[in-house]
């Protein structure tokens, strides 16, 4: 393991020391006489950390979120800190193994976030004993969101220091990526709270029973999805085998397009559509293969037109209409979008357009005859940004593939002339 630099270490120490200090200073506010219930929640957090649910967007959602929200609804800040930290330190250690600084840091930041969430919930007037909790929608939503923002803040700051990534961007992106799945955890947490306060402290934990069922179904879904995608891919590859020089093109374009879409923060369902669209972008060529294999015939625009239109017509049968649109417009220049205000060229089509250009240039794939080096391709993209390609996507491409100049404004030539003047 690489050695952590001084400022990272200092940050870790402060984060670990803060909850210890808070705990010692305010331990009198913890209702120790409720120890069986505190114990039940600690146990629930431990159990929930074993129940990882695969997030379709990648990564794992642990059911701990739901339990933690219930904790911050039910207990005052210091108690929430105590329960969340102790549950987390046992849970994460038993699932991920003991690494001292990691276990302490994670437990500390989860505890601090839970305390903050609980504080906000209470300050906004939330009260679990309230008869009609649905009239308190604001605190019910704010508590978990504050928890999540704070959680992402600590983790984001840590990783941005260790991996030298821009902090603010990372923080926002990571919060945005988990926001939706976290909001979905709130109803379960409110229900848990209601069952806890109105019925019996233990009955609410029966909710945890349904989680394995959901985990199983999601796993099945992810497994099926990858099998299906592989099949489509191998069929496309079978066609590519009969073609000169295009082998692996569809897959590479799909990989680049997915990377760009993720970089641009496209929601997961649309990323999936873009992947499909990229895999299928040249499906119209299957029926037109003769023209392609004949190198003597120069590329005519009518031929270009034909493969796009045929492809879109075929893709039109898919239940997702946006895929046909991507296939149709994947050669449309970006300028066309600008000229026509009502243009319907989607982000997906613009992404695939750039991804295809990159792969075709780098590998010398039709319509290009010779592969070009990376630097030339880079120069071409810079040149074409705003004309052939969407500048935002070119920028995302540089960020995603760690090219220099990712964060600089794009119209550098103009700036140069200004400074020269």
């Amino acid at each position: 393991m690489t050695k952590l630099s001084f400022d990272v270490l200092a940050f870790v120490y402060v984060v670990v020391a803060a909850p210890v200090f808070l705990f010692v200073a305010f331990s009198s506010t913890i209702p120790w006489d409720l120890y069986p219930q505190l114990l039940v929640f600690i146990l629930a957090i431990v159990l929930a950390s074993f129940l990882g649910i695969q997030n379709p967007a990648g990564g794992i959602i642990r059911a701990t979120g739901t339990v933690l929200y219930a904790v911050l609804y039910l207990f005052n800040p210091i108690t929430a800190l105590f329960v969340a930290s102790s549950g987390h330190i046992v849970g994460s250690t038993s699932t991920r193994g003991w690494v001292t600084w990691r276990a302490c840091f994670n437990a500390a930041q989860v505890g601090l976030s839970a305390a903050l969430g609980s504080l906000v919930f209470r300050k906004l007037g939330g009260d679990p004993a309230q008869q009609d909790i649905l009239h308190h929608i604001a605190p019910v939503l704010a508590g978990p969101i504050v928890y999540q923002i704070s959680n992402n803040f600590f983790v984001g700051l840590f990783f941005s220091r260790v991996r030298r990534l821009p902090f603010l961007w990372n923080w926002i992106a990571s919060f945005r990526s988990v926001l939706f799945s976290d909001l979905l955890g709130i109803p379960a947490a409110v229900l848990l709270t209601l069952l806890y306060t109105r019925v019996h402290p233990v009955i609410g934990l029966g909710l945890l029973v349904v989680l394995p069922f959901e985990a199983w179904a999601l796993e099945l879904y992810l497994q099926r999805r990858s099998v299906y995608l592989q099949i489509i891919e191998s069929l496309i590859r079978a066609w590519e085998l009969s073609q000169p020089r295009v082998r692996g093109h569809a897959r590479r374009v799909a990989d680049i397009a997915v990377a760009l879409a993720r970089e641009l923060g496209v929601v997961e369902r649309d990323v999936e559509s873009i992947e499909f669209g990229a895999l299928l972008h040249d499906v119209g060529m299957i029926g037109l293969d003769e023209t392609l294999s004949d190198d003597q015939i120069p590329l005519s625009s009518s031929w270009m037109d034909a493969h796009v239109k045929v492809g879109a017509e075929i893709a039109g049968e898919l239940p997702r209409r946006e895929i046909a649109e991507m296939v149709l417009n994947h050669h449309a220049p970006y300028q066309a979008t600008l000229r026509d205000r009502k243009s319907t060229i989607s982000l997906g089509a613009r992404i695939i357009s750039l991804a295809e250009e990159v792969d075709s240039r780098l590998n010398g794939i039709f319509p290009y005859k010779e592969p070009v080096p990376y630097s030339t391709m880079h120069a071409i993209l810079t040149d074409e940004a705003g004309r052939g390609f969407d500048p935002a996507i070119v920028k995302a491409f540089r960020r995603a593939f760690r090219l220099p100049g990712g964060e600089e404004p794009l119209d550098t030539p103009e700036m140069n002339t200004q400074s020269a003047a």
Partner: protein
Amino acid sequence: MKSKRELVWTLLLGALAGGTLGFILSSASVRAVQAPWFVAVWLLVGAASWLEAPLQPAGEVNFAPAIFLAVSASVGVEAGMILAISAPVLPWLLSLRRRPLRGVLMHGVEDAVVLGALSLIASTVPRVTAFRLGSVATLGRVSLVFFSLRFVLLFVRTTLGQGIRPGRLFGPLLRSCAPHYSFLVGAAMTMYLVHRLIGPAGMLLAAIVLAEVYYPWRLLGEQRGLFMTSLKMIIEAVDLKDPYTSRHSQRVSNYAVMIARNMGLPETEVEQIRVAGLMHDIGKIGVKGSIIRKPSRLSDDEMESMRRHAEFGAAMIRDLGPLAGSGRIVRHHHEHFNGTGYPVGLAGEAIPLGSRIILVADAFDALTTDRPYRKGKSREEALEVLKTNAGSQFDPRAVAAFRSLLVQRLEAQKIP
């Protein structure tokens, strides 16, 4: 034929549902339901009817019954019936009416009919199903009756609509339904319990949480639909090499499924035949379009490369998980019954049954579509050709099954 039967079925059920609803509304005193709660539950049932999972071999199930069963038990059957009929309109409106309205309404109407029947049973024989008695166990029992009746309706609809023999349908459909129905019964009981413990707010929350748990099933079904249409697309692209055979593979697949079901094959084999019918020409992906399109006689070399498509296609799909079972069928789909076909020259029963069926379907579609050098034959003429060559080229059993199917269909077309 298919759509007419289904229309009669819908009308019949619609009338029944209307009748029972009217009967119940007139006899029972409609209680005042708190409007905001009712709107919230209505939206929720609408969303739940969008959470739809496909069943094998046909039909679908959605999450709505769990909610309106819980509502029926805690508020009243009338409320449950109104929800069942009206809420499925919500996803239809939200999908910008892209979903077929008839399918949407059909499901809701079937639900309502079953619910109505249930409450009629309850009102005539109160001891059997004390519907408002209100213990969780009763709701469990009532839900079981509900889903049994629901299954019967689904069974009848699928037999009528898909032409599957009842004996072949029962097992697979039940196996496919059982896990969904048990989850929905459990969900209804949970929601009802929470309603008694906490009140309507609790029930709403429980419904949301349970619907979330059910959501992956919709994803799964959607993914399967996306996959099947992607296969169709790629096949369509291959068919485009010969512009005269547009959608050829899809029609062959449909014919082959009809024949297989008419012969009473098990549904697992029918599924393999459906895929094999769709993919039977996938091997042509590697054959030059100029050869496929050539109207004149092919040279020996060209014939050889054309004939390789069966082997090539089989090799392509043999490794593709769910499609693998169809590989053997694709490989032998040009074998003739008397052993004169290719690639191996198998004869009679040695040829996989699926391949024999696809050969008939393939020939029929080739005969009835127009070619550059001749016009397509009529269905009757094509049937005659099949009959003459039954025993030499085609399996007589497959031809007989196809004949009986087409004769039925042709007669049904003549009647109006």
